[in-house]
């Protein structure tokens, strides 16, 4: 039985059992209490459907929110950051800002969206190994964005250069996880 689907029932039973007192039954306004329980059950059913939809997406392994998509984005990240770091010397700062926003949206956010699927499949420790260096790269990309917005080209270039190392570390972890999955 799906553990998540049983949560509302376990919780309801535990809390009700915890309350001590003499019940007087029936009460004329009992239907409202029943309505509250019905809302709770509906929430449980809704959550189960959402989980089922998430599970179905995971089968494809490429849609956003899956481990496959996260690993693919992770492998692509160092090349993209390196290319931007090199291009940034010639680009205008406004172009650097837009390029960093693109990297955050199309790569980092895709990796982050895979959190639930990666944790479900591989556990917290593997997620930490992948996301730790990714988040460090993300912070440096954000710093590059801020510096470029502030008109500080030197800091933007330095931050992008530093982000490459972390992105490469995350990509190595992604490759290791992918090969372990295949094995």
């Amino acid at each position, binding site marked *: 039985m799906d*553990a*998540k689907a*049983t*949560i*509302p029932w*376990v*919780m*309801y039973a*535990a*809390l*009700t*059992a*915890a*309350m*001590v*007192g*003499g*019940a007087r*039954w029936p*009460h004329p*306004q*009992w239907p*409202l*209490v029943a*309505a*509250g329980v019905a809302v*709770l059950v509906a*929430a449980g059913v809704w959550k189960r459907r959402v989980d089922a939809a998430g599970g179905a997406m995971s089968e494809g392994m490429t849609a956003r929110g899956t481990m496959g998509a996260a690993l693919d984005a992770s492998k692509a990240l160092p090349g993209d950051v390196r290319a931007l770091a090199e291009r940034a010397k010639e680009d*205008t*700062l406004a172009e650097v*800002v837009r390029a960093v926003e693109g990297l955050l949206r199309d790569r980092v956010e895709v990796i*982050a969206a895979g959190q639930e699927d990666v944790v479900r499949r591989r*556990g*917290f*420790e593997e*997620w*930490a*190994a992948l996301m*730790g260096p990714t*988040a*460090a790269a*993300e912070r*440096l*990309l*954000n*710093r*590059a*964005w*801020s*510096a470029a*917005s*502030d*008109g*500080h*080209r*030197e*800091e933007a270039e330095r*931050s992008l*250069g*530093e982000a490459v190392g972390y992105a490469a570390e995350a990509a190595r972890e992604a490759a290791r996880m992918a090969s372990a999955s295949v094995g």
Partner: protein
Amino acid sequence: MSERELAGRAAPYREVTVAGVLLGVLVGVLMTVSFTYAGLKLGFTVPASMVSAMLGWGVLRGLLKKGSIVENNINQTVAAAINVSSAGVIFTVPVLYLASSEAARSQPEVLAAAAAHQTVDDFLRLHPGMAQQIPTRFLWAIAASSLAGAVLGVLFIIPSRKQMIDLERLVFPSGVATAAILKASGSGQKRARYLVYGIVASIVFASVVGLPSVVPSLPWPALEDLDVGGLAHLPAWFAVVLAINGGLTSVGGGYITGRAGLVLLVGAVIGHWVITPLVVTQHWMPAAVYDTIVRGASQHASEAGLARWAFRNVTRPLGVGMLLGGSIASVILTAPMLLSAIRSIRQQRGSSGAAQELSPSLLYAGVVGGFLTLVAAAWLGAPELGIGRILVAAFVATVWMWLANIIVSIATGRTDNSPLSGMALITILLTLTLLGRSSGGITVAVLMAVAVCVATGQGSDMMQDLKTGHLVGAIPRRQQITQLAVAWVGPLISLLTLMVLSKKFLFGNDPLTAPQAQAIRAAIDIVAPPSDATALQQAVSEATRLRYVAGAGAGLAITLGAGGGLGVVLGLAMYLPMSVTLTYAIGCVLTVVTEKKLGKAWVEDVGIPLAAGFLVGEGLAQVVLVGADLARVAMRGS
């Protein structure tokens, strides 16, 4: 900014600067004074982050012409680090003042002096200094415990930064809103425009709602909540209430959190639409309590009174217990991430060789120093307890402080709501269980509660600021050092303000109603009844303790079964009033609907900036309203 201007810019990139720190100190101190008063009057405070970030743009970039985004981030970090402690002080310290004025009511010299007045209360209201006499030794003890809390609060949460922000990706809506302000200049005109729209709308709304509390002659009343259930003729125990005062902040926080925040609604349904109605309709309360509430009251008043009793004595204790159990389970489940984060703090170095996080050895030394300060505070407050019992109480409080810090940070990170007074209550329960309900026991319990409240405020604020910092690319170590350097200022300013106010006003009366402290004072009698308590009080106390334990068991089981800090969020929902949760849930639903109908780009470009504006505007309006109220009180006094 044009390329021509940029070419002239040379290293270093401005981050920790004298101007940024000084501006933060100035804003932080002013807001601490204002919100110590406002918190005592209204029961809530406003974080300084967003207000300070707004001012930062005007001063650092507008006036000084050289501010950077990360420099303004340091400014808001400093201001918030100072201001955040006011909540911890005002929720707990007035408990000692309330106890003092209670004791004064039976003192012969007070009774003699009050003979010329109608009642003793009338006399004490006119002579608050006589009623509220806290010995200087106690005041030093309070200062020491709040300082210990400020330092320990920051130090305890630093190792969790990587886990909560980098790995768990907690939202921290206020942190996101502050980052939106800091980044407004580079985010494009569209986002900046909607941020401003949100701010203006929120200022207008909050002013209309809050102005009658400052100008009572206005033709409309001060609006707190909208009782939708009452309008629909639903029973008072089936709460369908929307927050009006603070409503846009709740909607904005919910919108930024998005779909994930809807779990809070599930907890509210359990607490307010299942448990509270069950307790009321099935009369799950002592017959004497039931009879007292309903005797001579109308049907609506009885239902409302019974619902209040059920919420305070059943639903809320269960919620606090679930918070506790859920957080213990979260710590167990995320231990691998936490350990990995701590390992990486030891190892991680930037390319320049500079550490990104505060050194672990400094953390350990600071924790030992904070613990010893806490012991000194307890010793100053109640030396008669003996050093052995004081050491045990301080040790337990320090360990609990670490856990409470995690609870509050998870709650803030997931929902933007913080169960500070619940943490104070558990601290008092733990300490009184260890030390007993003697005079010294209560003093040390309040001192530990002061430390825990200040610590949890500092911890959750540090995490909000670090989230903001992550989004603007700040260096965590610099923020952590800055926060540690100024964390001690806030508690002292707040304490001094409180002492000055105590000379002029009587706690528990307008304007210093101190609702949280009064609730804690009442809760002490419930969780640790006096030796002469009646059988009914003993029974209620025993049942309340059982509910804490039952809630903790449920929170532990749910979180271990489902993960994701579920027990913490559900417990928080049962702890919070329905008005806050329901209004917050509206924000979450709006995210889901707008994302579906208008697309993710609309949410990012319009929805989030608008929601961030709601949070900022309400904070700004509250600052202005409190300033006006302070001026009104000062003029009335003169």
